[in-house]
């Protein structure tokens, strides 16, 4: 991670969101400190702070004074709902575009998805 074109603090925020969605970090559990993130990803602590603040503003994590940052109750549900909204734009449209380029029609595409489901 850290280097796919988005601002670094956005990448860090998305990485933490992924960990919450995947259940790696559970709700009401503490996330690493800004300095720990900075050291781990080798980024400036202020940049790491911006990433974490973005999650605070979105209500995904909250601050316990003098203790640290914790994942909010219901954060996982909300993140999944949010990601679903972006799914069409980020995944479906590029997929359809590439399929059209290769002459794969929607019927063939849906067949491919179905067979993929069986083997996956």
């Amino acid at each position, binding site marked *: 991670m*850290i*280097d*796919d*074109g*988005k*601002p*670094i*603090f956005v990448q860090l925020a998305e990485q933490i969101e992924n960990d919450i969605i995947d259940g790696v970090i559970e709700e009401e559990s503490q996330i690493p400190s800004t*300095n720990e993130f*900075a*050291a781990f*990803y*080798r*980024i*400036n*602590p*202020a*940049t790491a702070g*911006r990433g974490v603040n973005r999650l605070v503003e979105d209500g995904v994590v909250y601050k316990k004074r003098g203790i640290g940052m914790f994942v909010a109750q219901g954060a996982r549900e909300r993140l999944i709902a949010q990601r679903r909204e972006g799914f069409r*734009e980020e995944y479906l*449209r*590029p997929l359809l*575009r590439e399929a059209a*380029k290769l002459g794969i029609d929607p019927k063939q595409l849906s067949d491919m998805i179905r067979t993929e489901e069986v083997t996956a």
Partner: protein
Amino acid sequence: MTAATNPTAPVVRVDGLTKRFGSFTAVDGVSFTLEPDRIYGLLGRNGAGKTTLMQLLTAQQFPTTGGIEVFGESPMENPAVLRRVCFVKESQKYPDDWRVKHVFASAPWFFDNWDAAFAERLIQEFRLPMKRPIKKVSRGQLSAIGVVVGLASRAPLTFFDEPYLGLDAVARQIFYDRLLEDFAEHPRTVVLSTHLIDEVSNLLEHVLVIDDGRILIDQDAEDVRSSAITVVGGRRAVDAFVAGREVLHRDGVGGLASVTVPALTDAERRDAADAGLELAPVSLQQLIVRRTNTTEKEFEQTS
């Protein structure tokens, strides 16, 4: 006697600073401030004026004109200020008869916050030969000595001038890791001066780009990075998309074009994707190279 009374006041304030050597202008009317507890990148090509600027800030050169304040005071012959400043030079000179250990034995005389235990740990990590005469150590070991002094001195204002010349990849990584760790525990103002931008770009909060003695960019690192994007695709599609936009750089091979333009909105990104174009990030280094190119004519006139 402490120089700074206000902890949020700028650590450095430079106003209209110029340094001439004969007819050569090394630093040309620059003004900027350095805020406390940030990691700055002082970036630019070799000979751009980085070292001269740091020599002026650390009172090793007299300005031709212009004002310098460090911790709110002039640094000239001001030990109260200079005790709080550490300047790790690219080619630091030591007395001829010194061994490596003498550097670390003398460092506590100069720096109030010297942490001997931290220095010892860094010496181990860099595997520095303590008993070797300083004249016999390699370029990389000299750089490592400078890095240890710069980190363990914990000076409120620390300059590293091209700190990793000759350091191998492992040693450079140790430097970056220890810098971030120690900065987190003991925040201070750090200036990393380098022409190798990509290596350190993620460590920086703010960048000052100097070229031909002038400040070209004085901006948050993240803002600089997200200020431009490269559009890649078929020449005709790219040309249609960038029509009417400012072009920072253009490249191409065969029917393929790669054009760097200022940042795009989300809607514009979607338009680009719909037109079958790919968007690629621009690294800090690429951006600075491109921005210095756009004003190259101006530099040619002065050189």
